[in-house]
């Protein structure tokens, strides 16, 4: 007869594992924000004061807040069963996000919360203490503890809401000067701003929008589809009935690079980033989980750089879509994968069309000939032999110099810096302007010849 033993993990070992669950700074902050969104907040503020010997970071919302008992329950790791049904707008899943996200970035997590009709309640996890005592020692803060935090200017909760405080930060290197702490935290906050502006962009617009701030600076939404830009094309859409509502699919094609303004392009991270982020944009309850990439449904290609497919899924489908604890990855169910393929071809085709119609203009050039050698399966770019100016030049040239010119033109074609042109057009298309060549270098060369002859 087998004997059942207590196989519970030791708190000391378990907490060290939880610290390494794989969050980065942005996904950790996003997981905290998910809770603020679910708590019906209209303002979410991320704040980290500069010039601190022991830097800390707080995330404060004005959501409905928690009572002391709700707070203590929510401080427990895995306080919710992921299989339990949740409210349609709830962005949470495992009931572990707030804790594991915080432990990945800081060794001390303090949560303060207040409902409109209660006092501030507070609780704290201190990893050093858990390790030292090898026990899950959750501290409930009393009035004196909270007053201390208020005196230090840390408490930011208004009439109601929740504040997450990360102390003993591990998201920066600790063996350097405190001035560098500020630089490191500033750099992390800058990355977080970009991440939040994209991943929560749909919460930042509309009547019941949420105002996001980082160190008192408002965060502007980044629309990955550039729907309000000139030249944007909206494609076909479809919706599927499923558990918890609908899966909605909508296709988008961004404006061509030449029609994008420089600031519009910069917001998207530049031309290379736009090309890199082609693909599927999957939203779970309006929150972006997957920003680009084709998840094996299509190939990444420069010509499909402008194609985007927006997919909205309800949180009720977490199990089917295998959303992970960080809500940062997911897998497409087979049927959805099959149906999705039908919708990919449209934006990809239109993205190619935008590129190719521009390409055709270049093909009509009388100076360069694009030779498609189908038998040898190769394409070459050559000086156009039928160009009238070239014909006149050769005609006027003395016969003994003609071979020299032909040899030069052949070298000109061979040495065309194709790789450089390709990467520059992909990376900085707006900077390339062949219409603006002033001819100064060539004119100088000609003048030098004339002077030498005189």
């Amino acid at each position, binding site marked *: 007869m087998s004997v059942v033993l207590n196989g519970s993990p030791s708190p000391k070992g378990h907490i060290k594992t939880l610290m390494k669950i794989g969050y980065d700074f942005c996904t950790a902050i996003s997981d905290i924000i998910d809770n603020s969104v679910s708590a019906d907040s209209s303002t979410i503020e991320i704040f980290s004061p500069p010039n601190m010997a022991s830097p800390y970071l707080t995330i404060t919302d004005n959501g409905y807040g928690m009572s002391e008992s709700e707070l203590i329950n929510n401080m427990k790791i895995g306080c919710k069963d992921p299989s339990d049904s949740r409210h349609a707008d709830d962005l949470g899943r495992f009931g572990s996000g707030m804790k594991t996200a915080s432990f990945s970035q800081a060794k001390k997590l303090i949560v303060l919360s207040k409902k409109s009709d209660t006092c501030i309640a507070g609780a704290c996890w201190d990893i050093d203490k858990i390790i030292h005592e090898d026990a899950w020692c959750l501290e409930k803060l009393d009035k004196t503890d909270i007053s201390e935090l208020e005196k230090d200017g840390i408490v930011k909760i208004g009439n109601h809401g929740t504040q997450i405080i990360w102390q003993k930060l591990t998201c920066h290197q600790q063996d350097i000067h405190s001035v560098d702490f500020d630089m490191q935290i500033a750099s992390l906050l800058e990355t977080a701003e970009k991440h939040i502006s994209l991943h929560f962009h749909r919460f930042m617009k509309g009547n019941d929008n949420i105002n996001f701030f980082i160190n008192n600076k408002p965060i502007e939404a980044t629309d990955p589809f550039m729907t309000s830009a000139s030249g944007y094309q909206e494609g076909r859409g479809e*919706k599927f*009935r499923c*558990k918890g509502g609908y899966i909605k699919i909508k296709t988008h094609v961004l404006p061509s690079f030449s029609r994008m303004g420089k600031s519009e392009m910069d917001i998207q991270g530049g031309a290379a980033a736009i090309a890199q982020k082609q693909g599927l944009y999957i939203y779970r309850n309006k929150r972006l989980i997957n920003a680009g990439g084709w998840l094996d449904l299509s190939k990444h290609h420069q010509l499909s750089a402008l194609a985007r497919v927006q997919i909205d899924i309800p949180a009720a*489908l977490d199990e089917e879509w295998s959303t992970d604890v960080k809500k940062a990855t997911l897998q497409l169910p087979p049927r959805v994968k099959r149906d999705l393929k039908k919708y990919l071809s449209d934006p990809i085709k239109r993205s190619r069309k935008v590129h190719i119609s521009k390409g055709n203009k270049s093909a009509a050039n009388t100076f360069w000939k694009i030779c498609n050698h189908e038998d040898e399966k190769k394409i070459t770019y050559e000086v156009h032999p039928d160009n009238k100016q070239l014909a006149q030049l050769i005609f006027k040239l003395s016969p003994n110099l003609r071979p020299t010119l032909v040899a030069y033109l052949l070298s000109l074609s061979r040495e065309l810096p194709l790789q450089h042109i390709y990467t520059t057009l992909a990376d900085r298309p707006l900077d390339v302007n062949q219409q603006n060549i002033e001819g100064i270098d060539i004119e100088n060369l000609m003048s030098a010849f004339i002077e030498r002859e005189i």
Partner: protein
Amino acid sequence: MVNKSVAAAFYICASICGKDGVISSQEEALLTESFKLEFNIDDNDINILFDQFFESEALIDSYLEEVIDPDLRKKVVAIAELSAAADGLDIRENLALQRTKLTWSNT
């Protein structure tokens, strides 16, 4: 309130159309229209039936047992065939349809 056998009939059609957990908008439209027309139920009833279908973990076999009336069975097969084919009848949907016909022909 929709009676039990009509609800089971609806779940059978939904099971055939949504073999992998999703029902396309064309399938949904045909399923909705057919049930409203044949069984005199409204959009609200249909929505409740859809929600109950997706919430339930029951297999198609348990719904098949609940539909006894031969006329209702004929209607179910006709609606399922029409709805599932709305966006092209795929192999899984066709298998579920054949299984329905086979199960009922043996009872």
